[in-house]
């Protein structure tokens, strides 16, 4: 037996027989989770790695060279994509940024003020309102989207930016998270003290509670940003003018045209690669000062 194992086992020796076998056994087991997690990571990264490499290939290289061998056509693909129908691709990207950015901002504003109210006040109907808002999470998008379209059509709002923006402002999950964060981050005695000093309720919220809730609100914003950026069904139903399409819908129409024309494959692949970049970059940047765990409502006391 090595001296290392002996030394490690020494403190336990005499109290519990058999612990000398402990350390090597545990070390062997730690190998299994590490390898399994790496396999999981490989599985999750594979399509992303593929699209990164495939986007560098020219049309002929795509079908002739080995899949994971980089090609030489990235700049050409990029300019082809930018030239496609006078740069409609970048219009889609801009639209997605607008829908997701503005939508998430408004959604975070509504969520924060609602979550704060639900967490800090005791009032009649509090749980009833909370439960009704939460029930929105359970509503299948389909039972909402079709009548939303018909109702917005009567208001002459379909096929407009508003038709995609407005239905996504209220996020039941965002309200739920905001309530948790507000309850954890805003102490009742601070609110009470401000009230004693004569601050009105709106001032207490904007000046005192809101800054305390910021870390949680970053999560609400990111969650809603991803939800809107990734949404397909709503714009698919609402929009027909492709100048207003978000990137998901734009890529879908490109796929519809390109599926039978291999010449369009390189456009699609490059477009898919660029569409993945913003959110991945966002998460990598945010990762430095923000924890993924907040997404499931974890609050550190």
């Amino acid at each position, binding site marked *: 037996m090595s001296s290392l194992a002996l030394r490690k086992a020494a403190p336990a020796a005499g109290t519990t027989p058999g*612990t000398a076998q402990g350390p090597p056994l*545990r*070390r062997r*087991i*730690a190998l299994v*989770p*590490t390898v*399994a*997690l*790496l396999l*999981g990571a490989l599985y*999750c990264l594979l*399509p992303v790695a*593929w699209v990164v490499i495939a986007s560098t290939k020219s049309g002929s290289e795509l079908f002739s060279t*080995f*899949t994971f061998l980089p090609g030489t056509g990235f700049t050409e693909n990029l300019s082809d994509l930018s030239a496609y129908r006078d740069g409609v691709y970048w219009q889609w990207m801009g639209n997605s940024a607008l829908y997701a950015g503005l939508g998430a901002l408004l959604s975070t504003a*509504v969520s924060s*003020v*609602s979550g704060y*109210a*639900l967490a800090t006040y005791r*009032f009649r109907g509090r749980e009833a*309102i909370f439960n009704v*808002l939460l029930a*929105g999470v359970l*509503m*299948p998008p*389909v*039972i*909402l989207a*079709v*009548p939303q379209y*018909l*109702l917005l059509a009567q208001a002459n709002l379909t096929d407009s930016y508003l038709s995609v923006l407005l239905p996504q*402002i*209220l996020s039941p999950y965002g309200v739920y998270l905001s309530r948790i964060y507000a309850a954890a981050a805003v102490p009742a005695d601070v609110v009470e003290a401000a*009230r004693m000093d004569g601050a009105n*309720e709106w001032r207490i*919220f904007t000046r005192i509670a809101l800054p305390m809730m910021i870390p949680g609100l970053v999560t609400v914003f990111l969650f809603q940003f991803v939800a809107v*950026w*990734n949404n*397909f*069904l709503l714009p698919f*139903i609402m929009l027909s003018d492709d100048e207003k399409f978000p990137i*998901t819908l734009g*890529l879908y129409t490109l*796929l*519809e045209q*390109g599926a039978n024309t*291999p010449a369009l*494959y390189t456009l699609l692949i490059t477009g898919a690669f660029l569409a*993945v970049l913003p*959110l*991945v970059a966002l*998460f990598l940047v945010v990762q430095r000062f923000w924890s*993924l*765990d907040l*997404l*499931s*409502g974890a609050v550190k006391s």
Partner: protein
Amino acid sequence: MTSTARRKSYGVKGAPYAFLLPATILFALFFALPIGYAIWLSFRKVQVSGLGLGSGARKEVWAGLENYTDALSDSELLNGALRVLGYGCIVVPVMLGLALLFALMLDSEKVRLAPFTRLAIFLPYAIPGVVAALLWGFLYLPDVSPFYFVLDKLGLPQPDLLDGGPLYLALSNIAVWGGTGFNMIVIYTSLQAIPAEVYEAAKLDGATPLQIALRIKIPMVAPSLVLTFFFSIIATLQVFNEPTTLKPLTNSVSTTWSPLMKVYRDAFGEGDIYAAAAQAVIIALATLVLSFGFLRAANRRNKQEAAR
């Protein structure tokens, strides 16, 4: 009590309602009203008189349960429901099984590269379902896929992944790939919330990490497992984006592959919003019955175990 104090307490009383006003208005306009409208439409139909020409020839009338009986006896809708049920039976257990497994492994001691693998497995969450389906769709295409390249070099048979039984696996794989990371984070977060003292006793008793995982960790995260299951059922029954995106790549995905796709086709392809509304209501009810049925069953089991 002075009048200013009374006014202030009045302000405090009114404040929460004022704060909740934007959410309430949005809820009324974009949740309650559309649901009510869908239910209303589901009991209506268009009656055409004469040749259907001229104003007044097409009239909206009360249909009773006609749209519902039509929908329930519609074999296309039933087949779509069966397809999605089969798809869900693959997606939900595999996705949540992997999520739980990865969460437990991230939580185990002495695991290496945990921050990297955690982020990598979570990464697909940031990728839109349409783009995910597009990426995998290309990976399923023999012309460009690395899998077929390898199979070809090895001289192995090359199955058509976009047809018949493999199509279910191909679609399920996209959902598993996209959903495992988020669920892993939810489960991992609740694992992290378990205080370390809980394990100490078990460790002193000589329990192996596997025993600790099975006997202590999994039971303690049961509530978040139930929750992830609940939301996965809802999301799976609503599947729309992935099969819709794969449709241009294969003839095996029909316009009515999933019930949701059929609602879309009936509402916008066929212009029959009444039939579509009735189907949407049925799908919503079926989803709620299945998801809440699961929740009740899970709670009942928990109570029984607690009583034991």
